[in-house]
């Protein structure tokens, strides 16, 4: 069933057009999200949290939710991960036959419709109205493609879950919409890689995707979110994780390509001694825009967070990094580190970086910093005097700038994949 979303006449939208609108545990949240979506201003340069993004394409008005599921060709390097459990979303719609998946003990993957009421209620909580990103509210109100991935307690999954999101062959003004909800049992371990791909097209398309993680006590999740869309794609997404006591969320981001990529990362420390590791690289080129908004909430005492993002901004592209650390009043002994460094390769490249600290507890350790720089002429010259031409020298120095983050990817197959994506990128920039 297709339905129209007229962004200029939002008041006409109703939940009735959604397949999942009958689920009563979800209804209230979806309704609230829809109301919020209707009331908020459309993203534009005048709206806080969007002011650096060109969202004029939304003025087109009528969008249609994509419902295609047929498999589509893709020209991307496949990731050679042995034994991975693969899920494919094509234009937001799951293409796998879930019943046919051969899953290890302790792991379950289902559509939301098939989950029990209490699971659905948990997901509803994740779908809380979003204050700063109204497009996520749209996704929360109308998304029909919600997949729930859950492990039992004490499950150590060796196989990686590899989720490929592909947008391709879409009509003009189409929206792809999906959510995944990952629930990790106590003392369980899971690794998951999401890669977003698209085909180059003249059509205006928007992909809305949210990934929710709920980490139970002492669970460990390794997560990669790689955006490698082509220049025509608009992607607005979110990663949101809640961490219980002793949980560890290790989450890595790559922003490469796409006309516009806005990713919100929300981490909620809800149990003592939880730890999050956020690392990311963004590499806009041409006229691309990449925007990461992260928000780490230390809601309880004794939690730690470590966040490092590096950006290389080429050509006439631009990037936004907004990293917020919010330490609640009772969250004593919090330890938070945030660092963002940017390298501008041209005079037209732009970056807006804004680390934000909101600290309401008094006994905490907090460090943050952000820098913007250009390639060091002296270093380029030094390499040149050793016979290395300027282009190559600039490339070597650019790679050096992000090497520390590449080295943080400990899984060999993923790092190799990352290195090959970076090599390909580096061969295209000046």
């Amino acid at each position, binding site marked *: 069933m297709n339905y129209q979303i007229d962004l200029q006449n939002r008041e006409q939208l109703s939940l009735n057009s959604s397949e999942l609108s009958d689920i009563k545990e979800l209804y209230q949240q979806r309704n609230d999200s829809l109301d919020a979506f209707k009331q908020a201003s459309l993203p534009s340069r005048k709206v806080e949290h969007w002011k650096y993004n060109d969202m004029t394409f939304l003025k087109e008005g009528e969008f249609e939710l994509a419902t295609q599921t047929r498999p589509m060709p893709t020209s991307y390097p496949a990731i050679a991960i042995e034994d991975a459990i693969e899920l494919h979303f094509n234009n937001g719609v799951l293409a796998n036959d879930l019943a046919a998946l051969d899953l290890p003990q302790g792991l379950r993957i289902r559509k939301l419709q098939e989950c029990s009421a209490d699971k659905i209620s948990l997901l509803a909580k994740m779908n809380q109205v979003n204050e700063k990103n109204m497009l996520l509210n749209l996704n929360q109100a109308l998304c029909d493609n919600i997949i729930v991935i859950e492990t039992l307690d004490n499950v150590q999954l060796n196989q990686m879950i590899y989720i490929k999101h592909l947008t391709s062959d879409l009509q003009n003004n189409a929206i792809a919409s999906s959510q995944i909800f990952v629930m990790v049992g106590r003392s369980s371990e899971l690794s998951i890689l999401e890669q977003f791909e698209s085909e180059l097209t003249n059509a205006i398309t928007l992909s809305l995707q949210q990934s929710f993680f709920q980490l139970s006590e002492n669970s460990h999740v390794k997560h990669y979110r790689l955006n490698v869309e082509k220049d025509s794609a608009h992607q607005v997404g979110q990663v949101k994780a809640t961490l219980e006591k002793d949980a560890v969320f290790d989450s890595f981001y790559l922003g490469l390509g796409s006309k516009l990529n806005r990713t919100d990362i929300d981490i909620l420390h809800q149990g003592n001694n939880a730890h999050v590791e956020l690392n990311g690289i963004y590499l806009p080129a041409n006229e691309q825009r990449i925007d990461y908004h992260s928000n780490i909430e230390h809601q309880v005492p004794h939690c730690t967070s470590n966040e490092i993002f590096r950006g290389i901004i080429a050509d006439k592209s631009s990037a936004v990094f907004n990293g917020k650390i919010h330490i609640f009043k009772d969250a004593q002994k919090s330890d938070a580190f945030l660092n963002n460094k940017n390298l501008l390769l041209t005079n037209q490249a732009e970056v807006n970086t804004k680390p934000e600290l909101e600290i309401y507890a008094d006994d905490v350790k907090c460090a943050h910093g952000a820098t913007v720089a250009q390639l060091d002429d002296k270093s380029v010259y*030094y*390499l040149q*005097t050793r016979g*290395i031409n*300027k282009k190559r*020298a600039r490339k070597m120095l650019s790679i*050096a700038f992000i090497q520390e983050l590449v080295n943080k990817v400990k899984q060999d197959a993923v790092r190799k994949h990352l290195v090959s994506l970076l090599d390909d990128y580096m061969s295209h920039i000046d």
Partner: protein
Amino acid sequence: MLKINNLHAKVEDKDILKGLSLEIKPGEVHAIMGPNGSGKSTFGYVLSGREGYEVTDGEIEFEGKNILELEADERAKEGLFLAFQYPVEIPGVSNMEFLKASIDATREYQGKEPLDAVSFMKLAREKCQQVNLDQNFLKRGVNEGFSGGEKKRNEIMQMMLLEPKLCILDETDSGLDIDALQVVADGVNACRDGNRSFIVVTHYQRLLDYIVPDYVHVLSNGKIIKSGGKELALELEEKGYSWIDKL
């Protein structure tokens, strides 16, 4: 090998070289001495083709070729090597990766077969040993956290690897203790083969006890104001740089 005639150069609108002339034949070692600020480093930068160092007059001919239009990397591949007074640190680029890229580019330009990884490693280790650098340096970032002496030895190591025709050593002796000085000088002397030429830039006579020059030139205010044999260095040392003001 090198013919410089009436070289004028400026940086950021400041004239620094003001009519420098010099001729160097294959196998010769020329020392350039001069007080701080006389333009010694600038001379090395101009020769090697650093951006922002603008030649406003005069010619530089290297091996019969006008090199003024060549980029710094092309001059290097033609066989010109500058050992820096202050080598830069480049964290994130390993010495090994750097040396391999450098050797590959140079050999390709010179029409030589590329070195395979094994031969390269063998060669790099051998050169490390010659300048008394531990092999672990190959894995570290270029000059990253190296001591002053280690940086200088790293420069000499690169020189040995690239086998240039003309080497400019910019105050390679500064900040070195006697032992390190000996290592560096041995490295340089090992490279002297009768064809390779050297310009040894130094503030002090001391280095010239180890690397014996054929000629000594005194640079002052962007010009060579006096040339002579190696005894000129001793005379300078004895009388001090204030002496040349009276020349």
